[in-house]
């Protein structure tokens, strides 16, 4: 976070409330220019809310967002033309595909190359301009519409591109194309990218850093596993929770038995053979998925334990040495004191 350049976003005590419920609370956060940050987290964890706030589409209930060192607000002319958001729900205007993509360019006063820019943007998301540019907005499949909406943002060559689930209804090939377009944007225009997605392997592939959101709280960098409540007493200073398959989670006693807890992935030990070691908790699980992060050569592993899914990023050698293929039963071991509570106050 302390690179030479000043952060492009600095967030101070940001809160967003909807109808009395707090949807997001970010005490402090900085994002470096040119970074590609991924946001992951369950439904309703606040990803879209954070993106809307960073895109200055909504006003926060309280707190400040500094853009390049200065506080900013919706309609700030410094921001309008530089920060763009691809909303989760892609909305196309009642115009042709071409006009939808060209809209933002025209707002700025189109240069003479606007047609090329539109065509380039369409090609970048895998839509042949000759085939799609003249179509009306409604003559598109779901994934095509999603990609047109993205093309409209890419055409702006923005300084900050916020993408809310850009690959949600997009085929694998296009997801790959979107990944390349995102990286190209950073390389060509220095674009800072912030991307929310439920496709973990895609997210790890694209992003320099992936942040976890849970119940409105942001956990920058590193993967985590979240243990939702409710918890019950388990003797001296410990709480426990029963999983669907009958195993027990153990955590140090907290303050609110309905609160969720979490543990960082690097504090988990994954092994084929059970580890028996004093006060540690040992859980049996199954390897569900493995996905290569081509950029780093590491592998994202998803393990199912009861109804929980646990995600860790491992080196391929670790996998090969332990011999963990999908379907293999493995053991996950952790120390209860490594479990932390999420403060929901």
């Amino acid at each position, binding site marked *: 976070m302390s690179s030479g350049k000043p952060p492009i976003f600095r967030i101070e005590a940001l809160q967003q409330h909807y109808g009395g419920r707090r949807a997001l609370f970010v005490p402090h956060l900085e994002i470096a220019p040119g970074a590609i940050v991924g946001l992951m987290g369950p439904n309703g964890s606040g990803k879209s809310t954070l993106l809307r706030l960073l895109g200055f*589409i909504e006003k926060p209930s309280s707190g400040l967002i500094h853009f390049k060192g200065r506080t900013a607000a919706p309609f700030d002319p410094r921001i*309008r033309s530089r920060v763009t958001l691809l909303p989760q729900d892609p909305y196309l205007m009642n115009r042709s595909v071409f006009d939808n993509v060209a809209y933002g360019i025209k707002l700025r006063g189109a240069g003479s190359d606007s047609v090329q820019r539109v065509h380039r943007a369409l090609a970048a998301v895998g839509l042949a301009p000759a085939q799609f540019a003249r179509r009306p907005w409604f003559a598109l499949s779901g994934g095509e519409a999603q990609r047109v909406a993205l093309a409209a943002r890419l055409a702006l060559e923005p300084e900050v591109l916020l993408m809310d689930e850009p690959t949600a209804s997009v085929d694998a090939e296009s997801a790959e194309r979107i990944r390349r377009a995102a990286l190209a944007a950073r390389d060509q225009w220095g674009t800072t990218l912030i991307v929310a997605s439920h496709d973990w392997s895609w997210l790890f592939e694209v992003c320099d850093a992936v942040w976890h959101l849970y119940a409105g709280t942001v956990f920058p960098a590193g993967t985590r596993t979240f243990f939702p409540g409710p918890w019950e007493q388990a003797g001296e200073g410990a709480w426990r929770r029963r999983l669907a398959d009958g195993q027990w989670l153990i955590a140090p006693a907290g303050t609110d038995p309905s609160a969720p807890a979490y543990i960082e992935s690097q504090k988990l030990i994954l092994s084929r053979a059970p580890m028996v070691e004093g006060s540690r908790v040992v859980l049996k699980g199954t390897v569900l998925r493995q996905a290569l992060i081509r950029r780093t050569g590491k592998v994202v592993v998803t393990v199912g334990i009861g109804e929980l899914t646990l995600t860790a990023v491992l080196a391929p050698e670790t996998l090969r040495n332990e011999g963990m293929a999908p379907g293999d039963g493995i053991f996950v071991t952790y120390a209860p004191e490594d479990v932390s509570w999420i403060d929901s106050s």
Partner: protein
Amino acid sequence: MEFLLDGFVQAIILLVHLDPETYSAIRATLWSSSAAMAVSLVLGLPAGFWLGYHNFYGKHALRTVVDTLLSLPTVLVGLIVYAFISRQGPLGEMGLLFTLPGIAVGQAILAWPVVVALTATAVESMDRQLSITLRSLGADRRQLLLSTLWEARFGILAAGVTAYGRVMTEVGISMMVGGNIKWATRTMTTAIALETNKGMFATGVALGLVLLAIAFAVNVSLSFLRRQVR
């Protein structure tokens, strides 16, 4: 009954070789209604957008007031405008009484709530995503207004056409403010009222049909706005 048929025949005759009296009334109607529509659209569209787009305390109450103004009786508008532009009124100096601009002022007042209420409804019924989309693509406040109105154009068109119908057909203002002066402020509707008062029902019907024909021509020329995408 037969005066309907007579009126129909007479209407065709009137349209085929326009006599100068009818022509003068058509001109007066088109002049005042166009001017009134221009004013009420310029003042009504932004107000309607504002009312439909924003959420603020008292919005519902304001909507109810605007809706109430849809029931503004034309004669009342006529009387109020008359009070201001009568020679002894505060704006008497402007000499608007018994003129087409005077009528247009009154008709603009009549049309304004229609434009505002229906524009607000049209804007309100737009997907909430539209605003997010426009703003995320870099629209400033003015562009947001214009693009939203353009996206809501079917609704806005309905607002305009409804207001236009109200203005075209009103009698009270034209009568009170315009005075139904032959060759000058006699509009189609005051002419119809006059003919009907004289018992010339067929002529009244004929003029009414001519008025409808004009409205039809205006609507046809606007129907390009109905096309979906270019």
